[in-house]
């Protein structure tokens, strides 16, 4: 294995992620080893590519089908080039088997560079702000509407900014707990103790009971509710840890 191809095993996944696919990987190999795109030395390129594939497989990474397909294409081109070409076919203008690969590589590289340039252009909201002066409408106020998609996009932006997304993806289950936490707090808004069992909606089914239970534990953990039990096996009561005085 050429020494410059050594990749520490834990970095393997990152390396794979940095390539957008087999074309991107091939381009990297060609540019890195100063190979000529117009006259690709198939043996060398195929060998380099296969080394990567092997490392990926040894790292037990799930290889996308596209990478394996490209390996097959490379080997096919290589084998076709090994066969002596009949003069008749050459006369009929049979194409060099590498031409199509070369065309695809160059087209992809063109788009890859275009994407980079596009990403460098100043973008509204990221690189410059838009001017927006308030209009205070007196009558017939038209209120803005929002969509689920708006909310989702905004939340993602927040996550990206907080760099929380790596370890902190929001799942549906988490939201359902949050929703139940709000429901329980609303129910406890009167400030009095409420019987524990009254906080559950039995008709909603077992899954929802479990979620409600987790929600109450979560509320207790965040010290938003107080849970009391006078004696062992006695009735359990819950109340909001602080009464909401202002209504």
């Amino acid at each position, binding site marked *: 294995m050429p020494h410059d191809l050594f990749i520490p095993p834990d970095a393997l996944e990152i390396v794979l992620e940095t390539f957008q696919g087999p074309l991107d990987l091939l381009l990297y190999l060609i540019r890195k080893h100063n190979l000529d795109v117009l006259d690709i030395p198939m043996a060398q390129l195929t060998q380099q590519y296969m080394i990567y594939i092997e490392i990926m497989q040894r790292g037990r990474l799930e290889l996308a089908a596209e990478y394996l397909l490209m390996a097959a294409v490379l080997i096919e081109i290589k084998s076709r080039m090994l066969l002596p070409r009949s003069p008749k076919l050459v006369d009929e203008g049979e194409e060099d088997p590498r031409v199509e690969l070369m065309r695809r590589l160059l087209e992809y590289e063109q788009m890859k560079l275009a994407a980079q340039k596009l990403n460098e252009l100043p973008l509204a*909201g990221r690189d410059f*702000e*838009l*001017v*927006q*002066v*308030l*209009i*205070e*409408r*007196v009558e017939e106020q*038209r*209120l*803005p*509407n*929002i*969509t*689920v998609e*708006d*909310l*989702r996009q*905004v*939340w*993602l*932006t*927040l*996550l*990206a*900014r*907080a*760099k929380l*997304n*790596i370890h902190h*993806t*929001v*799942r*549906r289950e988490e*939201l*359902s707990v*949050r*929703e139940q*936490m*709000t429901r329980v*707090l*609303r129910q*406890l*808004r009167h400030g009095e103790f409420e019987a524990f069992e009254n906080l559950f909606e039995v008709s909603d089914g077992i899954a929802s009971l479990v979620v409600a239970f987790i929600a109450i534990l979560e509320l207790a953990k*965040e*010290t*938003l509710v107080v849970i009391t039990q006078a004696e062992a096996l006695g009735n359990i009561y819950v109340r*909001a*840890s*602080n*009464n*909401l005085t*202002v209504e």
Partner: protein
Amino acid sequence: MSGQAITLPLSEEGTVQINAVQLEKLLEVALLTTPEPLSLAELKKLSDEPVENNIIEKILEQLAQKYAGRGVELNRVANGWRFRACPDMQPYLDRLSPQKSPRYSRAVMETLAIIVYRQPVTRGDIEEIRGVAVSSQILKTLEARGWIDTVGTRDTPGKPTLFATTKQLLDDLNLRSLQELPPLEEISNLLELDEA
């Protein structure tokens, strides 16, 4: 618009030279791009050098003067300073707006998203996630819309109020429950994690 350098009288030492022209320019941009009022504390962040309140106010008053007689005016309101269209412009603006839906500012949308996904939360929680102060104007906007309300207080010093979303929000989003919000993991992969 006049372009000469204005040197304003400064505090005792009187030596710090604040570039009033540059500061006025910065204040103007910030106020023109933010529909919500900006407090003096926020506006002060625009200056590279520390500035005193009275200097900022002087520049703001000067800026307000420059807009006199034009269609927008710079006002001081309870929460700070903000530009608004003069009320007598409204009949003209109404000719444009019928088909355009107004939009909430990013600050409002971010605050709402945090309450949706992290409820019940206090204003402090929201500020921590957003990394900036949340004006009470923003919370009032959302409360007036009936999308959030208070569900209690947290038992910590200051007894901060807890905010949560309402059924009204679900109705307006045409959802039966918050769980119907689409999962996010997939899209978060599409964002570049390392901020460039």
